[in-house]
């Protein structure tokens, strides 16, 4: 009886993970199935005659270009977010009064607004100021407006774990407030800042709504938009689409697996570890 509970919990966890990851598994094996096998009933859980068209799809669908555009946008969003978000996150963690409480609340509200709601006003505004001539930058700006609040909320928690006495010591030691932030606080929060930036990179790599609406030039479109175009309204070439999707998520999964330990540590243990 004593050992039954952890055992049950383990089974539950594995089952839930299985359900959660099933689409990923289905995507990956479908990429190796033939067209007829995909539509076969009952379905096969392992491709009977595995073949793949990764290289063909990659070339044919110009995935190099799409992935590059996604990479450029995700990098831009991450850097801009890190640059603009670290300061506010620190301020909101170390100055606590009525005004910063209101500011924190507003930041959380900002993050709640969905992209599909924001995209029309953003399109109109960007069009008027001529930002749409730089479509990838437009997407970086629009997406950053969503990720910066998230960054602030998460990194605020990181900064909260750094004792305020360290800042005081730096001030008494002769540093300015900005100096204390850059020389003491940022290095100590480094892990947390980098982990949240990595999460935001992965999120932005999969950004769709803004890329779809703000980028009209095919040469500048992202992998998510490329996938959508590929699917089209009447397609039935699921094998190729799954191949595309698998190639697309591979770098994100790779990054996540490589950083997995840091991400879990960074989100729980904090900056001083």
């Amino acid at each position, binding site marked *: 009886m004593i050992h039954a509970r952890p055992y049950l919990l383990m089974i539950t966890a594995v089952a839930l993970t299985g359900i959660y990851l099933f689409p990923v598994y289905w995507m990956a094996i479908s990429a190796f199935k033939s067209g007829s096998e995909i539509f076969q009933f009952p379905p096969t859980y392992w491709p009977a005659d595995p073949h793949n068209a990764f290289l063909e799809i990659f070339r044919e669908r110009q995935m190099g270009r799409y992935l590059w555009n996604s990479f450029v946008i995700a990098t831009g969003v991450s850097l801009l977010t890190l640059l603009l978000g670290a300061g506010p996150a620190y301020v909101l963690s170390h100055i606590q009064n009525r005004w910063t409480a209101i500011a924190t609340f507003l930041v959380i509200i900002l993050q709640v607004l969905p992209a599909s709601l924001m995209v029309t006003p953003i399109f109109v505004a960007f069009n008027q100021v001529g930002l749409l001539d730089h479509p990838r930058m437009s997407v970086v700006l629009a997406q950053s407006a969503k990720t910066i609040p998230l960054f602030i909320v998460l990194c605020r928690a990181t900064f909260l774990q750094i*004792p305020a*006495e*360290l800042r*005081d*010591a*730096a*001030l*008494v*030691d*002769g*540093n*300015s*407030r900005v*100096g204390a932030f850059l020389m*003491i606080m940022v*290095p*100590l929060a480094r892990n947390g800042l980098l982990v949240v930036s990595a999460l935001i990179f992965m999120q932005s790599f999969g950004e769709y709504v803004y890329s779809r609406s703000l980028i009209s030039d095919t040469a500048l479109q992202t992998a998510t938009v490329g996938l959508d175009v590929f699917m089209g309204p009447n397609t039935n070439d699921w094998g190729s689409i799954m191949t595309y999707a698998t190639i697309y998520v591979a770098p994100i999964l790779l990054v996540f697996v490589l950083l997995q330990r840091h991400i879990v540590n960074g989100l729980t243990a904090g900056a*001083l570890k």
Partner: protein
Amino acid sequence: MTSQHTQISIAGLDRSFGSFKALHNINLDIPRGKFVALVGPSGCGKSTLLRTIAGLGKPSSGTIRIDGNLVNDAPPRERDVAMVFQSYALYPHMTVAKNITYSLRIKRVDRATIQAKLAEAARIVGLEDLLQRYPKELSGGQRQRVAMARAIVRNPAVFLFDEPLSNLDAALRVRMRSQIRDLHDRLGATSVYVTHDQIEAMTMADIVVVMRNGVVEQIGAPLELYDRPANTFVGGFIGSPAMNFLSAKVDQLGTAATTRTGANFPFSKPLDAGRAVKIGLRPEHLSLTHGAERDNGEFELEATVAALEATGNATYADCRIGSDVLTIVLHGRPSLRPGQKIKLRAAQCDVHVFDEKSGAHL
């Protein structure tokens, strides 16, 4: 107002956090080169006062002058003060050497000077072998010394200490007390030292400032506070075990006070008959008498032993006089047992009389 001899001058200082008044009308002149202890129970405002001197918080009203310059709005780096924090606040991502030299590197002092000052500071606190370690690899006592070295290397006009010994074990604390005082004497700087431990304040400081609820209760030399406490709070706070207090009424002659149960305490300065007072008598000023003759100016009390606490070299005894309980300190190990009737004696000049209501010394 500030003379050549005053290093820090604080006048009419208030500090509030919202509706909470952390400091109320603080007036304090700290002479150059003196060791001043701010002491009081937790929450009395002593750390807030120290941080305000450091520039880590602004006064709500009143003035702070350092060397005659008004520094109310000056950031810490313009004040020439160094501070040792309770948690030591060592930078975890820097080695001991980098921690110590941080202030010099900010000021862009040249490398040779930094090396020389680092070597000197490390020698003074005995850290030469640990310079390349990180704070997490050090013991509590070593961290404390790094924090000291970080302050020393600056060669500041004023040292500020915020309970620097409270995280050390008892034996090390006693050793560090004399080391810090020794350092103060050698460096000749002014020191302001915050502690909740009255023994630390008494043994280290030239001047002790007793605070409670954001108010300065008394300023004076250690023994002055012990001999002439300004009120019941200071009387009870300074000295260990704490002063005994008994409610009493001044008798007809005005030269003694009688408790509700009839114990009589004579005192030297006559007071109005019938006045309600509090009698203060230190445990160490009471001793056992064996019915023999007593000296001039001494008086006797009859008591019953209620409880005994032996510490080895001294015994603390709680004695009942009527409904009041007095603690006394006896040397050695007297053969007493609870319930035993004893006679105590004390000198008239050791009886403190306070006003019952205000608590002020009369």
